[in-house]
């Protein structure tokens, strides 16, 4: 049993070391020529534009559910007017970055792991290496940059959409007209509430892409391996987001 525990601990440490090495190599490769503009634009489109509906639906329903819950609770002591402000803080600081990030881990992280994993098992990555092309520079860097740049933008839009969801719920579903809903939101919010969410989503973007790419590049064992690793990428990126969220919140509050 002890031997087994030791072996597992070593495997985890080895995995952590290899992941860290990949992240460092990827960051170093960002500043090395040639720069893969074509790949970057392709990824910006696939990570950003194509993911907008997922983030939009996540944020609008999150905003509506949160508003419904807080409105119901705050109504017990006639504090409904605080709902817009509370919604703004919760959404911008926590709900949009974390839930949006986890949805992106499912959509983008899994796609990266599956695509790179398939390329690995069909030897496309080896072919790339033989053609004197660094897979980290050609495949990882554009994905890392695209996800890190696009997630904060998507979350910014998600913030607005989530607030819109809260407004719609109060004014049109609960039939409790609240004039000046957005004024109350912006009176309550401070710039830091927005920026803390943006810092989080930037870090989450880097986690999603790096975990997805690392998992994909280390795939073994054919189609079964691709399937297993795709699941692992989503689980690990989601866990990474939740754990990092705690530490970032501690630092940013």
């Amino acid at each position, binding site marked *: 049993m002890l031997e087994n525990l030791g072996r597992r601990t070593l495997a985890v440490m080895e995995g952590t070391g290899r992941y860290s090495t990949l992240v460092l190599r990827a960051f170093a490769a960002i500043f090395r020529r*040639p720069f893969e503009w074509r790949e970057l634009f392709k990824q910006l489109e696939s990570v950003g534009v194509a993911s907008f509906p997922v983030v939009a639906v996540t944020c609008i329903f999150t905003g509506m559910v949160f508003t419904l819950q807080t409105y119901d609770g705050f109504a017990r002591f006639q504090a409904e007017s605080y709902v817009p402000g509370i919604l703004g803080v919760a959404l911008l600081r926590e709900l949009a970055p974390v839930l949006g990030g986890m949805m992106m881990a499912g959509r983008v992280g899994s796609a990266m792991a599956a*695509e790179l994993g*398939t*390329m690995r098992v*069909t*030897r*496309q990555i*080896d*072919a*790339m*290496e*033989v*053609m*004197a*092309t*660094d897979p980290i520079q050609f495949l990882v860097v554009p994905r890392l940059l695209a996800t890190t740049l696009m997630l904060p933008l998507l979350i910014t839009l998600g913030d607005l959409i989530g607030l819109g969801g809260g407004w719609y719920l109060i004014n049109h579903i609960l039939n409790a007209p609240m004039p000046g809903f957005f004024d109350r939101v912006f009176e309550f919010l401070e710039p830091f509430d927005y920026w803390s969410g943006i810092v989080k989503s930037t870090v989450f973007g880097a986690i999603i892409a790096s975990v997805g790419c690392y998992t994909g590049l280390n795939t073994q064992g054919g189609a079964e391996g691709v399937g297993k690793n795709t699941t692992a990428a989503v689980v690990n990126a989601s866990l990474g987001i939740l754990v990092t969220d705690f530490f970032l919140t501690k630092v940013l509050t």
Partner: protein
Amino acid sequence: MSQTPADTTASDQPFIKVADLHKRFGANHVLQGVNIEIGKAESVVILGGSGAGKSVFLSHLVGLMLADEGQVLIDGCDWKQMDRKQTYHLRRRFGMSFQEGALFDSLNVFDNIAFPLRRAHRTLKRGEIKDRVEECLEIVGMPGIANLTPSELSGGMRRRVGFARAIALEPEILLFDEPTTGLDPIMTSVLSEVIVDMREKLKATTITITHDIRSAEMIANRVVMMFQGRLVHEAPRDTFFATQDPIVRQFLDGNAKGPATAALIKR
């Protein structure tokens, strides 16, 4: 193992030299001291059964794997002594065709063949790339398919496109990993002829790993037999197939019983 003089057109200095190459994956000792010298413009076929270590050996030749022990020297350069930049520089002298082609699924045939050209020659104009891609497709006998995607190609077509991509940079060394495995006998002959044509046009050193005897007879100047991580027999093509070496004989005759089977069971 006897070192038979190579049937080569080049100088005495070996272009490729592998000395006492060992590779282990955990407890599995895959390559157990491989030694071979290959001259310029020579065509060597490495025959061997599944699990003999052929693909691992080929990966060492192109620097995708590094030796645990021993040396792999390409024109005097040792993969283990080179940094990333030098490695990529040396790799530009190689063209490699993978089993099943290993074409990039996300790119069409044109972009697959143009990939090494765009990477190696950043200043090439579109027209020059187009001309070269068309020329490569002509060489492998597949003109007019540049706009197809890999998913639209048959197994034989995928391999030929893989060949076209491998020769795009007019490499000095061509490596073929199981180029005819899983294909019908007619397509096997067609692809073997394409390999011979490409070698003659490029004057390239060609190393092919296969377990297809018919293909080996067509392609090789020299044939080497790999068994359990060692090169157990080598000879010029004309004499190799008449050998009485028991392991080679069993492989060539396809007998279920013999020294090779006994050794595999003992292992």
